[in-house]
């Protein structure tokens, strides 16, 4: 297993935001984590990436225990992520957002950077080239010199993905990549995500837009912090518990 959580629990005061939650993601999969608003989906992401401290339970990535790692350490291990809101460096240009996200591969030491060594200059030239490639991939190459804050919402989301790709992730966590997008942007996003998987990146997606189901190999449904169902998209669609979680218990009959 690439990523595995066991009995993951997060309490905020008396509220169990995530309770005894198990999820595993195998290499090369696209896994969807869906559930109604407030179900604890984003909390799971924040626990995996070390943004929030775990109350109890364990998280392992590539066999390593990462339960208590800091966010930047988790990123260095190869877990990239996007954010639901505020996903950018707003004062940087689109290109700078991507080049600044290349911190890990290739890596320049403080010495190399400060003294502008040939190695650093080579790395920076390589990064610029790669950044343009990534922008091409997510369809933002025309906006490269715009300030990130001036981008339309859908484009900002795609830039968030571009930034995450710059960290060269093994596993990519996408937090509601479709929220606030129009239908053509949604189609483009779905194609991009599929393309990333074909390039060998494992993807875990949090979403409440059900259109994501078409993309996933496996879906985990979470409600009130607990896993209520897991299976193929078709199985999940047919599951009555899922329907009741989304639409209320009265809806099922």
């Amino acid at each position, binding site marked *: 297993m690439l990523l595995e959580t066991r009995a993951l629990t997060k309490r905020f005061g008396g509220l169990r935001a995530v309770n005894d939650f198990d999820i595993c993601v195998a290499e090369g999969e696209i896994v969807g984590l869906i559930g109604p608003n407030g179900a604890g989906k984003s909390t799971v992401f924040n626990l995996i990436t070390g943004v929030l401290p775990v109350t109890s339970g364990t998280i392992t990535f590539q066999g390593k225990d990462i339960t208590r790692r800091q966010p930047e350490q988790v990123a260095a291990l190869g877990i990239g992520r996007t954010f639901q809101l*505020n996903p950018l460096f707003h*004062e940087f*240009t689109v290109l*700078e957002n991507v080049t*600044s996200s290349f911190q890990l591969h290739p890596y320049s030491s403080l010495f190399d950077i400060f003294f502008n060594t040939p190695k*650093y200059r080579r790395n920076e030239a390589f990064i610029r080239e790669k950044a343009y490639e990534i922008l091409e991939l997510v369809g933002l190459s025309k906006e490269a010199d715009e300030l990130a804050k001036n981008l339309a919402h859908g484009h900002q989301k795609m830039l968030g993905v571009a930034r995450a790709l710059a*960290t060269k992730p093994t596993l990519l966590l996408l937090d509601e990549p479709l929220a606030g997008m129009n239908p053509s942007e949604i189609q483009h996003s779905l194609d991009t995500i599929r393309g990333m998987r074909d390039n060998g990146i494992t993807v875990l997606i949090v979403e409440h837009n059900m259109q994501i189901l078409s993309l996933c190999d496996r879906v985990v449904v979470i409600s009130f912090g607990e896993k209520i169902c897991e299976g193929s998209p078709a199985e999940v669609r047919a599951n009555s518990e899922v329907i009741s979680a989304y639409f209320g218990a009265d809806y099922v009959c």
Partner: protein
Amino acid sequence: MSEVTKISPAPEEAARIEEAPKTRPRRWPRLSMVGALAVVLALLPLGISGSYYMHVLILAFMYVVIASSWRAISISGQFNIAIGAFMGIGAYATAIPSVWLHWSPWVTIPLGAVAATIVGAALAFPFARLRTIYYAMGTLFLGYVVINLITAGGKTTGMSTGLGGVQPLFSDRTYYYYLTFGLMIVSMLCMYRFEFSRIGVRMKAVAQSHEVAASVGIGERRNRILAVAFGSFFAGLMGAVYCHYQGVASPSSYGLGATLWIIMYILVGGINSFWGPAIGVGILLIIPEFFFRDLKGDLPYVTAAMLLIIAFTMPEGIAGLVKLVRGRIFDRGRREEVRADASGD
């Protein structure tokens, strides 16, 4: 009348959006300007040797470095109100071995800079958890604590009257002029590399969003501590040189008043520009001392009025105005410049 006022977007607004030239900017105009200024300053002692003007310029060179070191810390989003205390640590770390152990100033001055760096980094560690006003207030009181500890040092630190008899470096002021001038150039080169390289990109990323920065592997705490250590090295270095120049280490030179003036230089000069602190020192230190010495008591009022005018008319400070004018003359976009600088070559 219930007529609705229509607010239509100005058509020229759209036209004003920068049309970015795709070529690399030419940087020789700025470099030649800086070079010319450096040559003038290097030759100036021939004309003003031994005069009060030379004293003012020596102070100005030191304050350019100190104000720039504050700005180097600030690009990571930290508004540190203890920069005077870092100067003070540098000053006392050189003054105490100089006065009591009679060590050579050439040994104790580097010692002062290193002490300020170490203390700065150590103190930055707990403060790296604080942001915005909490960080500012926390460091403000940190500055108080440092100065109070220094004055509580008994005979060793000379208490509140200061520690006199610090060995001078030279007997001739001209040598101080060239020393501080040279140190300023080297320090500014270091700070230029710091800001316009991947290190500066990391700092600016942390300042904009520590969460996003962490998600791409830029650790907030590590980079903020690095920024403070880097800045306090130069503040400590200049604090140490200042103390040998004056022949005395006195706590009043490193208190809150000193810090506030340093920050004022930066705000007037332009906090978003690398040259802002230098411009601010030129306007608030050199010009009043050269031309308006009789009005020195009124400087706080003039400065406050100036800051208001600048805030309303040029939000980027004087440096922003310079940038605007220069942009018109040389016809190039600000953003291209920033980008070329950030690419580090």
